[in-house]
C-alpha cells in the first residue's frame, strides 16, 4: 500500500488545533451500570468506552484458580460500528486479545490480588466509538470501575499516549496522527510514577523517549485530578438505586 503523505502540522500547530502538550477533553462517569459491581463510562475526545467490573467471585473453570491470589480476566472489545473502518464481528480477534492481555498485565500491578485467593475479578471493556487511544481510555475506565466496585487497589493509575508527529513529540494522538504519524507511545503509570504499561509503535530516539515521558508524567496529573473529580461527583449527587432481592437461589 502506498504511504500517503499527510501534513499533520500546520503553522506549527496540530491539525486538530491543539498545542503539542494539550490533551483532548476527558469526561469520566462512575456507576453507570446497575447490575455490575462497579462500572464507568469514559469519553476521551471522540473515544467512548464503557466498563463493567464483577467480582471477586468463584473461578470458572475451576482449574484456572490460583491458591495464592485472585486472577484478573480482562475483556476488551470494539463494537462493530465503533469507527469508519471495517471491524467485523465483535468476538475475540487479534487486536482484542492483545489489548486484553496488556491491560490485564497493567492492572495486575495495582490490584491487591493477594487478598482474595482462589477468586476471579472480571473486567469488561467495550469501545463504543474509537478515535485512537482506546487502550489507555479503556485502562482509565477499568481503574475508575475498580474504584466504583470497591476492589482494593494499591494506587490510582492513568494511561496516556505520546507520539511523534511531523518530527515533533506530542501528547495524546488522535486518529490521523496515529495513522500517519511517525510513532505512537502509550504508557500507563501510577501516581508515584511506577510504569505499568509501555508499548511503542514506530521509531523514537533516546532523547525523544525522554521528552515523551516528561510530557506523559506532566499530563498524568491532569487525568489523576479528573479521576478524583469523578469520584467526588458520584458522592455529591443523590442517586437512588433499586435494591435487588437475592432470589437467585429461591426457586
Amino acid at each position: 500500500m502506498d504511504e500517503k503523505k499527510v501534513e499533520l502540522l500546520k503553522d506549527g500547530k496540530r491539525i486538530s488545533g491543539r498545542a503539542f502538550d494539550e490533551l483532548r477533553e476527558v469526561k469520566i462517569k462512575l456507576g453507570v451500570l446497575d447490575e455490575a459491581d462497579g462500572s464507568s463510562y469514559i469519553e476521551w475526545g471522540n473515544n467512548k468506552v464503557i466498563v463493567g467490573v464483577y467480582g471477586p467471585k468463584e473461578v470458572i473453570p475451576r482449574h484456572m484458580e490460583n491458591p495464592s491470589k485472585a486472577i484478573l480476566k480482562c475483556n476488551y472489545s470494539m463494537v462493530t460500528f465503533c469507527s469508519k473502518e471495517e471491524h467485523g464481528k465483535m468476538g475475540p480477534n487479534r487486536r482484542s486479545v492483545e489489548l486484553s492481555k496488556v491491560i490485564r498485565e497493567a492492572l495486575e500491578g495495582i490490584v491487591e490480588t493477594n487478598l482474595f485467593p482462589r477468586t476471579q475479578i472480571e473486567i469488561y471493556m467495550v469501545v463504543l466509538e474509537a478515535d485512537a487511544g482506546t487502550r489507555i481510555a479503556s485502562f482509565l475506565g477499568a481503574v475508575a470501575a475498580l474504584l466504583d466496585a470497591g476492589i482494593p487497589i494499591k494506587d490510582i493509575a492513568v494511561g496516556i499516549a505520546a507520539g511523534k508527529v511531523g518530527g515533533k513529540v506530542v501528547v495524546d494522538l488522535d486518529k490521523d496522527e496515529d495513522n500517519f504519524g511517525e510513532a505512537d507511545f502509550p504508557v500507563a503509570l501510577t501516581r508515584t510514577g511506577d510504569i505499568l504499561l509501555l508499548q511503542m509503535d514506530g521509531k523514537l530516539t533516546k532523547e525523544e523517549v525522554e521528552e515523551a515521558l516528561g510530557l506523559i508524567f506532566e499530563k498524568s496529573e491532569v487525568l489523576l485530578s479528573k479521576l478524583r473529580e469523578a469520584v467526588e461527583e458520584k458522592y455529591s449527587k443523590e442517586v437512588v438505586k433499586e435494591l435487588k432481592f437475592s432470589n437467585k437461589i429461591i426457586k
Partner: protein
Amino acid sequence: MLDEKTRIVLPGDVIREKVNRNEAGIVREENNTKYAMVVGMVREGKFIPLEHVYVPKPGDPVVGVVSGERRGIGYVVDLNTYYPGLILSRGLRIKLPLSSQIFAKVARIESGGNIVLTDVKRLPMGRVVDVPAAKVPRIIGRDMAMLKIIKEKTGVDIYLGFNGYIWLGRRGDVAKAIKAIKAIVSKAHIKGLTDEITEMLSK
C-alpha cells in the same frame, strides 16, 4: 451533598485518621504509614470506607440462603461473598431444606476458602435484600439507633448480616422498611440521616 468538613479519599492516599472498621481489604500499612486501598471519606477525624468488598472474619454475624447440601459434610450457604458458607452437620440439630434463610456467625475461614458458620438459626421465610457491605454499619447506626427506628416505626423483624444480606420478616410494613433501607443506602455519606429517616417513616 458533601459538606466542607468531609474529604474524599482515593486508594493510595495517606491516612492519618482513625480507621473505624475492620481494616482487612480497606487499608494497607507500609513503613508505619497507612494507605487507603478503597474509596472512602474522612469526617471528624475518622476514615470511613464508601465502597469495599466484604472480607469475612470470625465472629461476624451473617445472613445467608442455603444453596445446597454436601452429603456427610453439611450445607452450602450463599453469603453474597466470593467463598461459599458452610454449615457442618456435625452437632447441628436442625434440618435446613434448600433455600431456607438462616442467621449465623462466622466461626472460621478454612484454608480452602470455605467460610464455616456456627450458632445457626433458621429464620422463617421472609425477604432477603442485598445491599453493599460498606453501607451496613450505616443501616445499624450509632448504638443501633437507625435499626431501632426502622423496627419501631414499621414493625418489621430485621436481621442484618455484615455480608450485605438483610432479612426482613413478613409482619409489619415491609414495603416501608425497604424504602427506608433504600434511602439509607443511597444517602449513606450524608450527615444527619437519622432525623431524615425518622421523618420519612413517621409520614
